[in-house]
């Protein structure tokens, strides 16, 4: 049967729509002109200028530190959460637990930002790195929990029973069987938590306070104060990082599924 070409045409248009603005931004970052639009020759001067902006590098260091810590904490909280949701599914406690884990995903960021800001102010907690980390963990836990839960649902728990029958203790079975098989899911969840933390602007903006600056907050103030060519250069570097991460993660998940296929 002949298929309509219409959906494929729309897809083409959508992909151009997705990538054209990014492409223009990347090209402009090499443009000697201060404004985009007119090409005034190839130049790396915006990148050179970027390296002489200590504020950007300090923000980048903060961002990395926050993201690493957030990834670690939310991975622990999210994994225990997923294990509980999976093993004790349908208990009344888990139904409440699931609602609590799921709801932050459907709440607009600005509401989480304002509510946490109000809670920190009411409790007299000083705004800064600590409040940013607490806030980031809060929205990352749900993503980690649901990602790991998805993997657990595909997981064949009879393997654990086999290990137990062969004499492994509960702890050994968890460490030697469950953990390695769960590793790709944990890696995917860690990647999500890390990216969410690095990218977050709205919630961070609300709970950051004057002292602590992250990269998105820096980028935002640059957008507001019109440092266009510098943001182009910085964005291009971040985009390159994103593309590499996606490529690597695709490779990892591809080889992961290959491994599980050969194991069957």
């Amino acid at each position, binding site marked *: 049967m002949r298929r309509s070409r219409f*959906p494929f045409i729309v*897809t083409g248009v959508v992909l151009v729509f997705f990538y054209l603005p990014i492409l223009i931004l990347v090209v402009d970052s090499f443009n000697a002109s201060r404004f985009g639009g007119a090409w005034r020759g190839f130049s790396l001067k915006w990148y050179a200028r970027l390296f002489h902006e200590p504020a950007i590098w300090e923000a980048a260091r903060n961002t990395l530190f926050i993201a690493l810590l957030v990834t670690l904490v939310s991975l622990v909280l999210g994994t225990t959460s997923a294990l509980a949701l999976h093993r004790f599914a349908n208990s009344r406690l888990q139904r409440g*637990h699931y609602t609590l884990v799921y709801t932050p995903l459907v709440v607009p960021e600005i509401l989480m930002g304002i509510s946490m800001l109000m809670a920190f102010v009411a409790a007299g907690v000083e705004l800064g790195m600590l409040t940013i980390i607490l806030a980031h963990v809060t929205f990352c836990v749900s993503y980690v929990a649901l990602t790991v839960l998805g993997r657990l649902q595909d997981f064949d728990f009879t393997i654990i029973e086999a290990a137990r029958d062969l004499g492994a203790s509960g702890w050994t079975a968890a460490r030697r069987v469950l953990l390695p098989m769960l590793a790709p899911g944990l890696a995917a969840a860690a990647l999500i938590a890390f990216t969410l933390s690095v990218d977050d602007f709205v919630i961070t903006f609300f709970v950051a306070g004057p002292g602590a600056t992250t990269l998105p907050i820096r980028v935002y103030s640059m957008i507001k104060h019109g440092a266009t060519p510098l943001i182009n250069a910085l964005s291009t570097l971040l985009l390159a990082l*994103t593309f590499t991460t996606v490529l690597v993660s695709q490779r990892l998940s591809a080889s992961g599924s290959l491994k599980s296929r050969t194991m069957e």
Partner: protein
Amino acid sequence: MPERPGAGSRLRRRGQEILLTAPSFLWLSLYFLVPTFLVFVLAFRPADPFGGIGRGWTLATLRALADPQYLSIAWRTFWVSFTATAICMLLAVPTGYAVARAAPRRRKLLLMLVIVPFWTSFLIRVFAWKSILHPEGLIKKTLVFLGLVDANASLLYHLGAVILVTVYAFLPFAILPIYAAAEKFDYRLIEAARDLGAKPFQAFRKVFLPGVRQGLVTAVLVVFIPALGSYVVPDIVGGTGSELLGNKIAQRVFVDRNLPLAGAVSIVLILAVLLPLLAVLALQRQTKRPAGRDAKERP
């Protein structure tokens, strides 16, 4: 795991459950649940002159909401989100279908092309549009060159720009759930409908769309709800005439530092978010009851 009878093991199981549940449960209660309730409580507190929260109780903050500007902004927020969601769906349904129907090799590439923007910084994607729509930017120059736009017209700082960039920002989130549903769809059903005399569009509307309903519902929610709380997009590409509820909340926090009033505006936003959620829940319960096949067919 095999269920072993006996009070001791049941108690141990209960203990394990509490041990595994406690960390995330307590964390989310403390940093998500309590703060959300606090927004409702603090809206009844006066603001203190140092940008904090004062003592005593007042209804003045809620009365300040009666200001017609908030009503018109709430309405604008609703219809901007509605329009952006409608456009996203018009683009996402054919795209999700096309990706699901592509040959395996091509599908992998298409899927990755859809996922990459998903991982790209939101702020950067919004900023990219600011510089293209800029008076010195490429699109403006092209449109002026083609004589489609007056040289003095501004492409930035109005509602059209806000809707365009909102669609750009949230479209990947709409495509993925539709793709996920379309990938599981049994396309022989469409062939059957065609054999029975349905026109292509009829088969699409009466067989395909109901078949991917769950994906469509998810797609609508993941665009509409964040769009209602949108702050970055109207802040960067919108003007004073295109402010949304999110801008108002941020202004109360960062411009005049009136946290109780910011909380009161947030309550309006919370209600605006709850309405579509409850509507979807009610709709799903209604459509599920008479049909009731979904649950039975699945093993």
